[in-house]
């Protein structure tokens, strides 16, 4: 993957002067007494609104609803508020203050939903089932003679070319269909570390399949 600074670092021309609204948020939140208390209450109200909206947007996928979903939103808003007030010194004004603050509650909702899935009864890493792979990639049964060899080559490459960690991550996500964030929770890892293992596995597997003539060399990667 690209080095972070070379591709996304905030460039020197980015405004470092806070917009008036962000400056006001920062001023009252670093104040003391009633003004700060009022600002904290207002921020919590906004975070809770965002959390409620976000858990409902994602809830159906995670098979969670009702009071449990509301509890999760309340916890996410409370934890986000704690993180925000503890990290005010890290806000540099590269975005609006509210966007920066909302980011915390979105991440909290994301992490809490993943942990909920991981803890749910009966949800654990499925056993390997390579027979699911054709469906996962839309291989049509009546063309089985054409893709059977390709999928056999994928499986061989997974077993022979990947490191044990890459193999574990690839099989869990691609073969067993475990969501990336759930796998990260299951393995006590992070989203970034799991993604990096998967990124390296994908690159390695494609190189092998191209070298062995199963895939074309051309690059049809999706570009933004």
């Amino acid at each position, binding site marked *: *993957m*690209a080095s*972070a600074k070379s*591709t*996304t670092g*905030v460039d020197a021309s980015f405004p470092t002067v806070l917009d008036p*609204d962000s400056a*006001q*948020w920062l001023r*009252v939140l670093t104040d003391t007494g009633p003004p700060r208390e009022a600002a904290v209450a*207002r921020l919590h109200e*906004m975070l809770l*609104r965002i959390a409620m*909206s*976000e858990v409902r*947007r*994602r809830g159906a996928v995670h098979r969670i609803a009702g009071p449990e979903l509301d509890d999760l939103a309340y916890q996410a808003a409370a934890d986000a508020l704690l993180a925000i007030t503890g990290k005010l010194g890290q806000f540099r004004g*590269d*975005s*609006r203050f*509210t*966007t*920066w603050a*909302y*980011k915390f*509650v*979105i*991440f909290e*909702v*994301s992490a809490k939903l993943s942990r909920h899935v991981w803890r749910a009864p009966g949800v654990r890493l499925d056993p390997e089932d390579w027979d699911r792979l054709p469906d996962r*990639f*839309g*291989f*049509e049964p009546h*063309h089985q003679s054409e*893709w059977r060899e*390709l999928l056999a080559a*994928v499986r061989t490459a997974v077993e022979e070319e990947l490191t044990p960690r890459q193999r574990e991550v690839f099989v869990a996500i*691609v073969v067993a269909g475990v*969501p*990336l964030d759930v796998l990260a929770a299951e393995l006590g890892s*992070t*989203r*970034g570390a799991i*993604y*990096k293992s998967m*990124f390296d596995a*994908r*690159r390695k*597997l*494609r190189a092998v*399949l191209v070298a062995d003539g199963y*895939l*074309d060399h051309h*690059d*049809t*990667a*999706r*570009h*933004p």
Partner: protein
Amino acid sequence: MNGPSELDRFLQTDPRDVGCDELMRMLDVYVDLVARDAAAAQRYPGIAAHLNACGPCSEDFHGLLAAVSAAANGTADHYE
């Protein structure tokens, strides 16, 4: 049969992809640019590449963009 092409697309990696940690660091900046229609993908191609490939980060992006858009369109989030 779209299986091979689907598999090929899945295995392809974009060298500009910055990964999850950098995406999480820059998400608020990127979303503000997208909300302002300020050519965010051109300015930060590594983030755009990552969002094309990472489901969980893409989900966070859409969640934050929805939050910012809702605030802009309805309930004010200004400090008053």
